[in-house]
Structure formats: structure tokens, C-alpha cells
């Protein structure tokens, strides 16, 4: 180890790391910035050329010695480059850190090249992308090997080897194969674990010989050719050894998630959940004293947040106290509260008052409040209505809240300070199961779904408490509206939370009926064996129960129940259920009514065996997790595309539905259009939290979208596009009378390719701003297009096949 010793070492040269280094440089602190790649801001460098980078959240002020404002990738990188040069930042590129040992004030950092650095404090800002997995063969450092592909159209008439068999490898290989000779090297004998669309495309391309594929093959070494102009990749595989002369090798064999490395530094995580964030103090300090974690790795995915934290972390590392940049935002939010304390004290008091939040570290709580709304609704004001689709989570800071429970015999439940509600819709993604009103002196914290989900996955205490409440309330809502909370707690203790994968059998026909399942999220299909054929007889959505028939009649299971999508149930054992029945005389009638209704439905469906096939088809299209889906009756559709035109005309020129694409069965066509999933896949990874859900169910994208494309990639149904607004179109009369534009309904200037701003994600928003319902359905002249919720599938199927 050499004698390099610094006050602060910063690992990772992204926005957070750069900002930290810039601040350290300005303060004249001995520092070093270690970046594994050959340039700064590796992730942003990999963005496509000219990509517009946003500066969300807009309200947060920037606190950094480097500049940053929304603009093109190039402008931002250029500004940072200049900042780096101008501020004499001590940066070392190509310095991949493989280990950090020790604690303040004596860290030793080991680099991949074998050298080391020692520092008193370390700021870890490595993001969550991880390092690309390397090929691991001699010659892998030659310039022929690359781990990313920006623009496939840049390459032409080359021989390119793509190593890997995942979605990224396939997408790269297919794009490159348009203009190049491409060989894809697959270590296995098939492509598994890839998206079905990609699988079909790659197999077809191989069959059509547009793409070559070496199965069960792996590289053994890479060398220059004798003339030094090209390279040779030696492969070994089933067909023996071979040598491929090529111009370029692109390795897409995944990335190592940074967690293992982070843990190897001694940083503690709260649990094994992959979504869990490291344990941090309110000063970004990890469980290792003097080791600070900032940016995406700490749970802050936005550029501005990371830059602010870089600045603040340097201040903290130097032992100073500085109020975080978001302090004024929080102060404004907390002004409504009557405590008269500073921000930190108020937050501490809030945590003390609400037990479910007591287990959270102050930093996470701060972030939670920053993302939450604090409201003081007037007495009797409705907080949410039954059947609304909102999914935020409420906790009561002061005063009371009344909630109506029970289906037929309604009763009101009063919640007091410290309690919470709204977890049912949060967890199931379904409509609100009850209406709630504000009581006297009510002050609420309304936390958005994303923040709470983050807590649930990283703080065991929060998960446990919310789960327990969910089970108790689910039982209360469905079976025991009058039971006291203590009774419910006892029942809930015996209930089990179970999770099923898509297609997994929850119970099978003929099994002993030992339990009842309340579906907490997802949905199930009920099927019966009729003449040796599995006939689906019904579909049951979250919020309902299955398995009551066997329990009431005390016989075996009369049908097989399968999860259609990832499903969670609360299961009650037979003894508990019978106890409940005895205690609540009304319940028996209610359950028996359900049994009768289902029996009648079954008989009807069994009379139409093809109807079961239609349900199965709809479930295969992922409609089991839909809340509102566009279905086209092909016996009525004349193919006029008025639906698409209506969509485009009411949404800045881009249609969010593709009528013709998508599968058809029994004349029911499922076009490519958003089905507003219960638990929307698109929401899982939205850095600015721009995807929202309105009370009537629609999943929509707000204007603070930064155009990252995560939602587009995460949507399994391909209904999100990245688009800019279309050029202006003159009206019919302007065209007719004043000659505006080349034709009716055409853009004014067809050559207009002007900059219409950055590409943002667009999708169906159910025409929420129009009023009167979705334009596609309203514009269908023949009534072929309808939007319905899955609960109505049975009716639809009855109409279609009956």
C-alpha cells in the first residue's frame, strides 16, 4: 500500500460523488474521488445521445458547488466536466474499488489494480447499477470488448459477437443484426428467463439466419489478429473449439448488484429483502462510523437529491451541522401542526406519537414526510369513499377518524391518535373497502404508496404491524363487523398470510377443506374437472374469499383454485371459521348466500363449456390483475380505427392504444392498451414518483416524468410509449378555407421535425381530463369497444358464449 492518505475518499463519480468532491475541493479538504470507469457520471454517459435529462423534484433547491439544471445529456456532462477541471477536484478514473475496510478515522480502500488509498472518512456514492459482469477470459481488457451499446445504428457491416442470453443481449443482437453480421453466444442450450416477445424474435431471427447463435458455448480467450486490425474470440462449446474473427464484442451478461460489496464493507441492512436499503442515520452515516452512503444506493434515485447529499455528506464528514436542503420544504409542510417546534423536533415527536413509524430511522421518516401530505380535514369531511381507487396510507396524528365497516350491517369504527388506516387498498391495489370521515381535531399524515412500500420492504417492524392490522381488518370487513379489536386480534393471530405464484394451486378439487382464503392481492380462477377437462367456472378478485363451500358443507373441495397472477391470501383454518360462524348468526346467512350465488354461477358456466376457455384466455392475457380493460368485440368491429384516432386527437397526437395488435379468442380481442393493473408494474421503479392512481382507478403519468423509460420497460403488456407531443394540426375549416396544411387532419408542416421537448412516458389515462369517459369507447361507432372491470367478465362471457 502506498502512502496516499486523504481526509475524505469519495467512491463513485456520479452526480452525488462529483458534488461531494466539488464541495471538498472548494473547502480545501484533502480528498480523492475514485471512479471505476474511465469517465465521470458513467450512468448518464450511457444515456442515448441528446437525451433530455430532467431536474426533478422541481421544488427542491440545488445545493452543490457543481451546476445542474434540466437539459441535454451533453450539456450536463459538459457542465460537470468544466466544474471538475475548474475546481481542482482530485479524481482518479479507472479506479474500481473492491474493498473498504476499517472505520473512521482509519479506512483503507483496496482498488482492483492492487493499489490502495487510506482515508479518514469515506462517502459511498456508487449508485445501484452495479458493475457489469465481465467475460472473465484472457484478453477481456482489449478495446474490442464493450459492456454497453448506446446506438446500434452506429455500426454497419461489422462482425459483432454478443455474449449473453438475457433480454439486454437479445435486444442488442437483434438491433445490430439489421446492419451487421452478428453472432450471439449463449452459454445454455436455450434462451430461458427472457421476455416472451424477445424469445420469439430471437428464435425467428436465428431460424431466418439473420442472426447466428452458438449454443452451449463460452469464450476462452480474445486476441488481436496478426495484422492487428481485427480480433479473434476463441469459443468452446458442444461443437468443439472455434475461432471467430470479429470487429466488436459486446458482453451483456448482467451486472453484479452492489449489495454484496456494500455488505462486505460492513454496512448493515435491515433485512434480506432485495429492495431493502442500508441502515442510515439522518446524516447519511451507515452502521460503519465515518462511512456515508448517498444517492440511489441510499434510496434517493434523483440527480438533484444525490448532488445535495454529496454536499451535505462532506459537511457531516467534517463534523459540521447543516440543515438538509429540503428543510424549508419540510418546514412548510409541518407549518399546519400546532407543536411550535423546529423541524427535527417535530419529526421526532410525530414518530413518537405514531407507533407504526417508531421503528423507522430518522432519515427514512424525513423522506416519508417529505413525500406525504399533512392535512387537517374538518369534522365530518370525507377522507376517502368506499370504492375509490386511491391507495395512500393514512396515520392519525391527532383527533379521530370514523370508518364504516361491514357489508350489510354497517357499523362505525372510531380510530384515535397513533392509529392508521388505508392499508387494505395499499396492499391489495383494489378499491377502498370502506368510507372514512374525519372526526374532531383530526390531523392526518397521508403517505403515498411508494414510500410505504419502501418502508415495508426495508423495516421489518413496519411490515409486521401493517400485516397484522390488515389481517384483522380483512376478517372484520368480510366476517365480523361487530367484533371487538381484541377478538379480531386473537383470530388474526391464528390466520396465516400465504403467497402464491401465478398458476400455483391454492387448493385442489377433492382435497380436504381445511381452510378459507381471503384474497388480499391478486386474483384466482376457480376450475372444475368436467368429463376429464379442466373447466374454469369463475374468477375471484382481491377482497373476496374462496373456499367457503367446502367449509360450510363440511365436504371436500368442490373445485380447484389457482392464482392467476402473484396472489396473497389470508387463510383461516376451519375451526376458527366455524367459531366465527357461531359467534355471528348473521354471518351464516351471508356466507350461505354467497355459496348459493356461486353454485348458480357454476351451473350456468358449466352449461357453456367454451366459456371456461374464454375465462382462461382472458386470464392468460394477464387480465387477472387488471382493474379496467379495453375489450373489442370483433363481431362488431369494422376496423375503422376511430378509437385510435380519438385517443391520439385527445392526447397530444399519440394514440395510447393499438387496436389491431393483441390476441383474440372467441371474437373477443384484447388490444394493446393499459388495463390499469391493481398493482401496477409501471409504478415499481419511477424515480420522480410520477405515476399516480386516481380515485376511479386510472393509472396515469404526471408532468414531472423525467423520461427515463423505466415504466416502459417494466410494463409486461407494452402499453407505455416514450413520445413527444405531435406537431400542431390545423382544423378542418382552416385547411379548407385558408389552405393551412397539406390535407385535412395532417400536420401543418410535414417537414417539421423541430424540438418539441423531451420524450416522456405516455399511456392511457382513461381520459381523466375529458370527463364523460374514455374517448376510444365513446368514439366507437359500432359499440365494439368497451372498457370493463374483471368483475364483469362473467357477465361478458355469458353474453358472448350464451
Amino acid at each position, binding site marked *: 500500500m502506498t502512502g496516499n492518505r486523504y481526509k475524505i475518499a469519495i467512491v463513485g463519480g456520479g452526480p452525488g460523488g462529483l458534488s461531494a468532491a466539488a464541495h471538498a475541493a472548494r473547502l480545501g479538504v484533502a480528498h480523492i474521488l475514485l471512479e471505476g470507469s474511465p469517465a465521470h457520471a458513467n450512468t448518464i454517459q450511457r444515456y442515448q445521445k441528446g437525451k433530455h435529462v430532467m431536474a426533478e423534484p422541481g421544488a427542491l433547491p440545488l445545493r452543490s458547488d457543481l451546476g445542474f439544471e434540466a437539459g441535454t445529456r451533453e450539456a450536463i456532462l459538459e457542465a460537470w466536466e468544466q466544474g471538475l477541471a475548474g475546481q481542482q477536484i482530485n479524481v482518479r478514473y479507472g479506479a474500481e474499488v473492491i474493498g473498504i475496510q476499517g472505520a473512521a478515522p482509519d479506512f483503507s480502500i483496496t482498488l482492483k489494480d492492487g493499489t490502495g488509498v487510506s482515508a479518514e472518512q469515506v462517502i459511498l456514492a456508487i449508485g445501484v447499477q452495479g458493475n457489469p459482469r465481465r467475460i472473465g477470459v484472457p484478453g477481456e481488457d482489449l478495446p474490442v470488448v464493450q459492456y454497453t451499446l448506446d446506438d446500434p445504428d452506429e455500426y454497419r457491416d461489422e462482425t459483432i459477437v454478443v455474449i449473453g442470453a438475457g433480454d439486454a443481449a437479445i435486444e442488442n443482437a437483434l438491433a445490430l443484426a439489421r446492419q451487421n453480421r452478428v453472432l450471439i453466444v449463449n452459454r445454455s442450450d436455450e434462451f430461458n428467463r427472457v421476455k416472451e416477445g424477445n424469445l420469439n424474435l430471437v428464435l425467428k431471427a436465428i431460424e431466418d439466419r439473420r442472426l447466428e447463435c452458438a449454443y452451449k458455448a463460452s469464450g476462452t480467450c480474445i486476441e488481436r489478429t496478426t495484422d492487428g486490425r481485427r480480433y479473434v474470440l476463441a469459443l468452446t462449446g458442444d461443437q468443439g473449439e472455434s475461432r471467430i474473427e470479429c470487429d466488436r464484442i459486446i458482453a451483456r451478461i448482467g451486472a453484479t448488484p452492489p449489495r454484496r460489496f456494500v455488505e462486505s464493507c460492513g454496512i448493515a441492512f435491515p433485512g434480506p429483502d432485495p429492495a431493502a436499503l442500508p441502515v442510515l442515520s439522518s446524516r447519511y452515516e451507515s452502521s460503519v462510523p465515518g462511512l456515508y452512503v448517498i444517492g440511489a444506493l441510499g434510496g434517493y434515485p434523483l440527480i438533484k437529491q444525490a448532488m445535495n447529499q454529496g454536499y451535505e455528506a462532506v459537511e457531516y464528514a467534517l463534523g459540521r451541522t447543516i440543515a438538509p436542503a429540503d428543510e424549508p420544504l419540510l418546514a412548510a409542510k409541518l407549518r399546519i401542526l400546532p407543536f411550535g417546534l423546529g423541524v427535527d423536533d417535530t419529526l421526532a415527536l410525530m414518530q413518537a406519537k405514531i407507533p407504526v413509524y417508531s421503528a423507522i430511522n430518522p432519515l427514512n421518516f424525513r423522506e416519508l414526510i417529505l413525500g406525504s401530505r399533512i392535512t387537517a380535514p374538518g369534522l365530518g369531511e370525507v377522507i376517502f369513499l368506499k370504492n375509490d381507487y386511491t391507495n395512500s396510507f393514512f396515520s392519525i396524528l391527532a383527533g379521530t377518524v370514523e370508518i364504516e365497516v361491514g357489508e350489510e350491517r354497517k357499523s362505525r369504527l372510531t380510530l384515535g391518535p397513533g392509529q392508521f388506516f388505508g392499508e387494505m387498498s395499499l396492499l391489495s391495489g383494489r378499491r377502498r373497502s370502506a368510507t372514512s370521515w374525519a372526526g374532531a381535531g383530526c390531523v392526518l399524515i397521508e403517505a403515498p404508496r411508494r414510500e410505504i412500500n419502501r418502508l415495508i420492504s426495508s423495516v421489518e417492524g413496519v411490515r409486521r404491524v401493517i400485516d397484522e392490522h390488515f389481517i384483522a381488518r380483512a376478517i372484520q370487513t368480510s366476517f365480523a363487523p361487530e367484533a371487538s379489536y381484541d377478538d379480531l386480534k386473537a383470530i388474526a393471530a391464528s390466520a396465516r398470510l400465504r403467497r402464491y405464484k401465478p398458476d400455483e394451486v391454492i387448493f385442489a378439487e377433492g382435497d380436504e377443506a381445511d381452510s378459507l382464503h381471503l384474497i388480499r392481492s391478486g386474483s384466482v380462477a376457480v376450475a372444475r374437472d368436467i368429463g376429464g377437462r379442466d373447466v374454469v367456472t369463475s374468477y375471484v378478485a382481491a377482497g373476496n374469499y374462496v373456499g367457503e363451500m367446502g367449509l360450510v358443507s363440511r365436504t371436500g373441495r368442490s373445485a380447484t383454485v389457482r392464482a392467476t397472477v402473484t396472489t396473497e391470501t389470508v387463510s383461516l383454518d376451519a375451526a376458527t371459521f366455524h367459531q366465527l360462524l357461531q359467534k355471528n348468526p348473521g354471518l351464516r346467512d351471508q356466507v350461505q348466500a354467497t355459496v348459493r350465488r356461486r353454485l348458480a354461477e357454476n351451473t350456468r358456466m358449466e352449461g357453456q363449456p367454451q366459456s371456461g376457455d374464454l375465462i382462461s384466455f382472458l386470464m392468460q392475457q394477464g387480465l387477472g390483475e387488471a382493474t379496467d380493460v379495453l375489450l373489442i368485440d*370483433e*363481431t362488431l*368491429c*369494422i*376496423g375503422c380505427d376511430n378509437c385510435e384516432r380519438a385517443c391520439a386527437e385527445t392526447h397530444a397526437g399519440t394514440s395510447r392504444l393499438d387496436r389491431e395488435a393483441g390476441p383474440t379468442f372467441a*371474437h373477443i380481442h384484447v388490444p394493446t392498451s393499459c388495463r390499469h393493473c391493481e398493482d401496477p408494474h409501471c409504478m415499481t421503479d419511477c424515480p420522480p414518483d410520477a405515476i399516480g392512481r386516481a380515485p376511479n382507478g386510472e393509472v396515469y403519468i404526471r408532468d414531472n416524468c423525467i423520461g427515463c423509460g423505466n415504466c416502459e420497460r417494466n410494463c409486461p403488456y407494452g402499453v407505455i410509449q416514450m413520445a413527444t407531443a405531435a406537431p400542431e394540426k390545423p382544423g378542418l375549416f382552416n385547411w379548407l378555407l385558408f389552405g393551412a396544411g397539406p390535407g385535412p387532419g395532417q400536420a401543418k408542416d410535414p417537414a417539421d421535425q423541430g424540438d418539441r421537448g423531451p420524450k416522456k412516458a405516455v399511456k392511457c389515462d382513461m381520459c381523466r381530463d375529458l*370527463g364523460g369517459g374514455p374517448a376510444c369507447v365513446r368514439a*366507437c361507432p359500432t359499440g365494439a369497444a*368497451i372498457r370493463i372491470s374483471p368483475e364483469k367478465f362473467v357477465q361478458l362471457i355469458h353474453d358472448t358464449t350464451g
Partner: protein
Amino acid sequence: MHQSVLAFGRSRYLWVALAVSAAAVAAYALDSPGVPPNGGTGLGYTLGILGAVLILWLMSFGIRKRAYASRAGTVQGWLSAHVYLGVSLLVVVTLHTGFQVGWNVHTLAYVLLWIVVASGVFGVLVYLRYPRLLSNNRGSQTKDQLLGDLADLDARCLRVTAGMPAEFGEALLANRDRTLLGGTAFALLAGQDRSQILLPATGGATVLYQALPNPDQAALLDWLGQRLAASSDGGLSRQLQELLSLVGARRTLLARLRRDAQLKAWLEVWLYVHVPFSFGLLAALIAHVVSVFIYW
């Protein structure tokens, strides 16, 4: 759930149209103007105004259909009303004429009205019947998928011919390049296949190719069949059999594509009568109204 244009809203516009027609007939039967019934009597004017208003309203369907953000009912509701009230217009206007016709602009408007309504009724029938045929024919595939399958079959054919004597490759290439989908309006509507193929002409020392009509791939299948019958080379025979089955599949696929285009053409063709004639009707109606007022 799904309901057709005729069944929309429990056919409420059928009842409206019947009421309008019945009222017109009753008024006509009860009216005794003292002169032979014609457009100039009190009732005649009333029916004329009603007819003109209906025509203007019916034509505004074209505007409503394109007013995508409109909250004025649904397009389906409008179409349902358009269909029923459009037919009732025949009753209203016929009574307005008082059964007087002649070689003049007034009767021109009346005749145009019949053409427009008749083409519209034809359109309704097509709309009710053809989508199902279209869907049955297409199966669960889209047109682009069918075209993709066609390209795929062509590629497979050429791959098979790569290992065969050159004439097969040339024949299959010519077959691909001279396959026609669509063509003239008549060919489209009749579902005619005017595809051709180039095949080696028999006889003569040099190989000459001649263009032959190849509807439903018949000429090619025939030629391949002959070659197979004449072949004594086992390898070639197997390749020919493979080609025959590929071309057979191609024939089925082409028939489906042609049927798809044919049905879609019928779904649209009536509009080429309905819309221009309705504008003609509008012009004749204006001439009719203006002339009536000039020659009061």
C-alpha cells in the same frame, strides 16, 4: 355488455323513428287541404321542414364522429339514431312529395335521398354481418402477422430451392414477385386472384419462360406436381414434396389475406356512394328550397 348499433339503448331510436313515421302517416291521412296533396300545403311545408332538418342533422354525424373530445352522447348512440331516423326520412319525405314526381330538381333531390338511404341500409347490413366473417377468417392473427407468415413461407420456399436445380429457384422467386394481393377495385371486391408466375416453357432447345396466370397458386402446384411425377431422383422428390406442402400452405394463406382485403373493401365501398351522394343531396336540397321560394 357489447351491443350492436341496432340494439343500442334497447333500440330507443327505433321507437323514436317509428313515432315520427307514424305521426307523419297519420297527419297525411287526416289532412284534407282541398288540393291534391303536395309540398306546398301546410302539412307539405311542415313535412318538408322536418325532412330538411333531419337531413342536416343526419349529415352532422360526420362532424360528431370527428369531434373526439365531444361529450354529446357516444358515437354509437349517434349512429344508432342516424340509422333509424335516416330510414324514417324516407317516409317523411315521400309524404312531403305528395307522390308527385317529375323531371325537375325537386325529384332529383328525392332520388338522391333514396340512393343515400339505400346505400346506408346496405352499409348497416355489411356492418352487422362482415366483422364476424372478418374475424373468423383472420383467426386470432392480425393482418401484419399474416403478411409476416407469408414472408416466412417465401423464405422457407427459397431455402428449399437453394439445393435444387436453378429453374425451381427461379420459378419460386417469380411466384413470390408476381403474387398480387388486391389490385383493381373490382378484383378487390370480387376477391379475384390475378397473380402470375413465370414457368419454363416446354419444348425447344433453349429454356424460355412464359408468364402464366396463377390463381390460387394453381399453375405452380400443377407444375410442381408434374415435376414430382416425372422425378426419379429420391432427393429431388423429397424436396419437391416439401415445396408442394409449402406452396399449399401459401395458397391457404393468400386466400385468407385476399378474403380479408375483400371483406374490408366491402365494409368501406358503400361509403364511396353514401357520402358523395349525401353531399349531392345537400346541394339538390338547397336548389330545391331556393327554387321553391323564388317561384313561390
